[in-house]
């Protein structure tokens, strides 16, 4: 993230590639992520999208919110579909069947589509090195089907398939570290971002698209409905996630880590978690344990960024 000593208004392209009138819930930061990423990428973009909230809120036949070429095929395969788009375009341009043009190929899916059901296709596409950007819109559960747990749901969160109860803390496994899995593919670009930091998100999307080869962007996308928070507080919660160290923002460019944002004062994890409905059953001891786990990962990223 850029660091300035003087603040002035930043300019953002007024063009909307995600048309207004879609059916996302109030305060949905996932659709905000889509909107901002498209602004960053611009018109020369082809997108393959997985089944999930963003697909359902945007494309009820015969309507569409998409002002870029867009394809939805199935839940788990957006990275394979985009592999096909990229390969097809590449071959046709090389053979002179269509004019040469720089096109951004993007696949987008939720955390369920990415970390669970679509893991094989994603790994395949990253490994083959197609020139594309994969965006994981992480709202930490299967929201489209009614807040079921995914492997990206954090420890302690109560969902409809990991409910908290007398004998359950809710989700009892740790959040799968997708960004690290992407890094393990030795692709040129991996980054994490959050809609509460819009310029950082847009810059990262742009940078990722400019890379030759596969890039992976993991976006924490606050979902007021699933997290059981007031819709008007979505942006605040994204900030709390980052400022508490629960969701570090960083980039890994050609294997080199750099922390994008270091909170001046780390706020307690409790401030981020306690008021969310999905965590309301947690005790202070639980919160403390979560904070310890979060700090471990945060410090690890800090160390890697400092070239340790």
């Amino acid at each position, binding site marked *: 993230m850029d660091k300035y000593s003087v603040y002035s208004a930043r300019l953002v392209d007024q063009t909307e590639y995600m048309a207004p009138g879609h059916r996302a819930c109030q305060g949905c930061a996932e659709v905000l992520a889509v909107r901002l990423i498209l602004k960053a990428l611009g018109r020369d973009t082809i997108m393959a999208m997985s089944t999930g909230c963003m697909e359902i809120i945007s494309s009820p036949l015969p309507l569409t919110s998409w002002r870029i070429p867009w394809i939805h095929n199935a839940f788990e395969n957006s990275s394979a579909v985009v592999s096909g788009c990229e390969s*097809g375009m590449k071959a046709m341009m090389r053979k002179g069947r269509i004019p040469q043009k720089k096109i951004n190929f993007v696949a987008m899916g939720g955390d369920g589509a990415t970390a669970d059901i679509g893991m094989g296709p994603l790994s395949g596409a990253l490994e083959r090195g197609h020139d594309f950007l994969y965006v994981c819109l992480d709202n930490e559960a299967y929201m489209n089907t009614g807040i079921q747990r995914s492997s990206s749901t954090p420890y302690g969160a109560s969902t409809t398939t990991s409910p908290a109860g007398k004998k359950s803390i809710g989700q009892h496994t740790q959040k799968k570290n997708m960004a690290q899995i992407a890094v393990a593919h030795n692709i040129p670009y991996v980054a994490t971002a959050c809609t509460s930091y819009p310029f950082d998100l847009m810059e990262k999307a742009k940078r990722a698209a400019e890379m030759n080869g596969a890039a992976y962007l993991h976006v924490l996308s606050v979902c007021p409905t699933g997290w059981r928070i007031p819709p008007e507080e979505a942006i605040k919660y994204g900030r709390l996630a980052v400022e508490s160290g629960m969701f570090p923002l960083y980039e890994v460019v050609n294997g080199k880590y750099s922390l994008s944002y270091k909170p001046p004062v780390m706020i307690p994890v409790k401030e981020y978690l306690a008021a969310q409905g999905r965590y309301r059953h947690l005790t202070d001891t639980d919160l403390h344990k979560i904070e310890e786990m979060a700090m471990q990962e945060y410090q690890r990223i800090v160390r890697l960024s400092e070239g340790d």
Partner: protein
Amino acid sequence: MSEIGKGRKGIEVSIAMADAVAQADVDVIAAYPITPQTHIVEHLADIVANGELDAEFVPVESEHSAMSVCCGSAAVGARTFTSTSSQGLALMSEIFIIAAAMRLPMVMALANRSLSSPLSIWNDHTDVMMVRDAGWIHFFVENGQEAYDGIFNAFRMSEDPGVMLPVAVNLDGFIMTHMVEPVEYVDGELIKKYLPEFKMKNALHPDNPVSMGCFAMPEIYTEAQMSREVGIKDAYPTIVKAWDEWGALTGRHYKPIETYRTDDADYCIITMGSFGETAMEVADMLREEGEKVGVVKIRLWRPFPMEEFRKSVLGKKYLIVLDRAISFGSQGGPVAMELRSALYGQKDAPVVVNYVAGLAGRDVSRKDFRNIILEGKKKAVSGHTDGFTLYGLRG
């Protein structure tokens, strides 16, 4: 365009098919190994590696992704090919259905093989029958020449602006894929004349942003299904035309339903796939013994050529239908069920006797064919026509 030349060759059928794909100048090949299809994509990998074909060879991590890559590639308007069998088809079936529903043109060589379990690599039609209702155009080839020709025919049908459907060229695994047969190649000039460059009207492109694969509420899903039904039915004349024009150019004529010695036949044996050749030989033998038997071969499976089929059999006394798959808990084999329903209520409809044979590569020899035909005739005469008989069942 590829340099693979014309002429007559003794060649493995898989290699001939791969050569045809290269001659058709495809843009994208999605490949994943599975017996008995593997030689086709292996040979394509060679052709691309040697620079004989300028295409993207995408060695995917699963068949599910193979079909997904094909969908993406077809959606941008690239000429697209893949090949699979059995478990591969089962794994990709979710996307296989979506490909047809989204009207994405592509060609698949489907080397038919049995489905697990028990695991078996050998040939029958249980894989293709699993996707019978997916909305693809399906035709069957009987020998190496038909397999080679079928690739050009399939691209021509699939990419026709009035069709826009994926096409599966079905060939019997091993019985055809691994045989060396004489195949007459065509030259580039002929292909250019026959197979125009693929130009997709609403391909994904930034200059003409379209949305593909939207979801439907109940108010519109029914209409979307109807458009698929109309689409595949309307493809029929184009399918016939694609074969007719091929016939005019090459002298090799293909029809949705092929008949052999049926004009004066009292009854017929019905097959689909490579067993047709054996059936014809056996019919010749039986004719010499005074049996007035003919052979009806179903080449086009979907869209099913209802009228041609009826025309070819109405007035015959009985039909002995040979299936290569069982629809468990039903009347028997899918082909017989199809034919029974095609004939139901028709005037002069023959009686249908159903045999299932040749599962997972079990040999069906001339002697077996003879048994099936004569036994089947007896069943028909005595009125034992319900259900089906699993031929050669031991124990």
